[in-house]
């Protein structure tokens, strides 16, 4: 288990603040999820029709953890800042690339990525911290790099994140995936990954 010092931007002050990225979602993170994140999510869902609820409201990270923990091919990440949980991600490392230039080569596939409710404009505007998504994409690229996959990653975008993945991260849009409720599938090429890691 390794901890990295990362940064998030506190939106109220515009300042970068130190945060921690751990390459494992621990029981402590799950307890934080249950105590602080889940109640906000449930409150948000109360009385709302299914289509109006956050798309990830049913994700049970504690239940998911029981499934992924014994498996070598899954990698979990958690970001904390000021003693609070800011984002969670689960990635798997044995899926294959779809872009013709790297077709069939292994990628790191982001299975689940969610930022804490207070880091979403849907819950509060501006969000408390910006950057949790960026840190998680960087973590997925780094994991891919360290596995020898040269930074190749893939993911199915939720909600309003499509522009972020396509225009800000430089990922290639590969169309709606019928196996994922028509969600848009994105993949990062080796070249874009290198660019993402180094300069922008």
């Amino acid at each position, binding site marked *: 288990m390794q901890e990295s010092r990362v940064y998030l931007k506190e939106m109220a002050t515009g300042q970068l603040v130190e945060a921690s990225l751990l390459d494992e979602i621990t029981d402590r993170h799950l307890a934080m999820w249950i105590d602080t994140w889940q109640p906000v999510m449930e409150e948000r869902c109360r009385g709302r029709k299914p289509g109006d609820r956050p798309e990830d409201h049913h994700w049970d990270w504690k239940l998911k953890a029981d499934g992924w923990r014994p*498996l070598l*091919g899954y990698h979990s990440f958690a970001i904390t800042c000021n003693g609070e949980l800011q984002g969670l991600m689960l990635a798997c490392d044995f899926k294959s690339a779809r872009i013709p230039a790297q077709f069939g080569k292994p990628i790191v596939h982001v299975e689940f990525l969610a930022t804490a409710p207070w880091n979403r404009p849907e819950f509060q505007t501006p969000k408390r911290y910006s950057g949790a998504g960026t840190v998680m994409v960087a973590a997925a690229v780094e994991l891919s790099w360290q596995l020898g996959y040269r930074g190749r990653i893939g993911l199915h975008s939720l909600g309003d994140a499509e522009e972020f993945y396509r225009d800000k991260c430089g990922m290639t849009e590969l169309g709606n995936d019928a196996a994922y409720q028509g969600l848009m599938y994105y993949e990062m090429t080796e070249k874009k990954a290198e660019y993402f890691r180094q300069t922008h």
Partner: protein
Amino acid sequence: MEDNEKRTMTLNLTPREMAVLEELAAKKDLSKTGVMRLALRLLQAVDAKIRMGQKMMFEDEKTKEKSEMVLI
């Protein structure tokens, strides 16, 4: 990834197995060790699904025809 303490083993492969390993390493753009480790992770994940009563299916992208891959 946290396992910095690695163990070494010798793997004896037949010429055909070695040829397949080399072919996969080239296709997947991985070292031969990388292929073996990927195979281990994939097999473990598939085995876990099968043990939970799930099936491993392949779908033909064009015809949408599904076929089950039976794992021994």
